[in-house]
């Protein structure tokens, strides 16, 4: 399997693990804030703001570990640059990912318009961010394997 594909799969798995671990932590420590205080925007603001740096740092650490492990296991070097095909695949995957996030945003706003508890809006926003990241990974894998 080419390095790029392995990197995408690891990135997707790390996204899943980081979100699951963070959500588990929030659910264990702040169960009341999630559902019983539907207008506690401060809690949700902090949750999302903390998730962003936690996610970035965790993924950087996971990618460094992957690069080291991959180097030891396969003696394969990381490509030193991304060429025009890599960039085109990245752009197309990002386009798909953005469309999914926009859809999630509309669903989140729809939930508010329908009078559903506001905490659902935040959950939908976080989920659509995660799903759009997965879509980015799957799109890249698809374009690498099937062509563009």
């Amino acid at each position: 399997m080419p390095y790029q594909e392995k990197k995408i799969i690891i990135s997707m798995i790390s996204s899943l693990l980081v979100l699951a671990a963070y959500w588990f932590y929030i659910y264990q420590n702040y169960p009341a804030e999630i559902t019983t205080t539907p207008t506690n925007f401060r809690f949700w603001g902090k949750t999302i703001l903390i998730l962003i740096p936690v996610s970035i740092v965790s993924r950087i650490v996971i990618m460094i570990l992957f690069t080291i492990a991959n180097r030891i296991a396969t003696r394969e070097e990381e490509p030193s640059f991304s060429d025009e095909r890599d960039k085109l695949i990245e752009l197309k995957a990002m386009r798909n990912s953005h469309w999914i996030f926009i859809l999630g945003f509309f669903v989140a706003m729809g939930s508010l318009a329908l009078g559903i508890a506001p905490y659902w809006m935040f959950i939908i926003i976080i989920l659509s961010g995660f799903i759009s990241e997965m879509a980015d990974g799957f799109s890249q894998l698809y374009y690498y394997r099937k062509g563009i």
Partner: protein
Amino acid sequence: MAKTPINNDIRKLRFNQDEMTQQQLADKVGVTRQTIAAIENGKYSPTLELAFRIAQVFSLPLEEVFTYNPEDTKK
């Protein structure tokens, strides 16, 4: 996904150049080996600049390396 309408003779040309490897060609034109493989298999149409760089490696005009066949996309 359908093949691109641009065909090429890169595989044959590499063979004629002392069995040049995909990696060697990739290094000469500044892309990854996977991109050369994708071009050879018709899974990626290179940019005009890359197509010219590939043709230059083989010292051939562009049309002797790449040919345009729109019928291929209908297959």
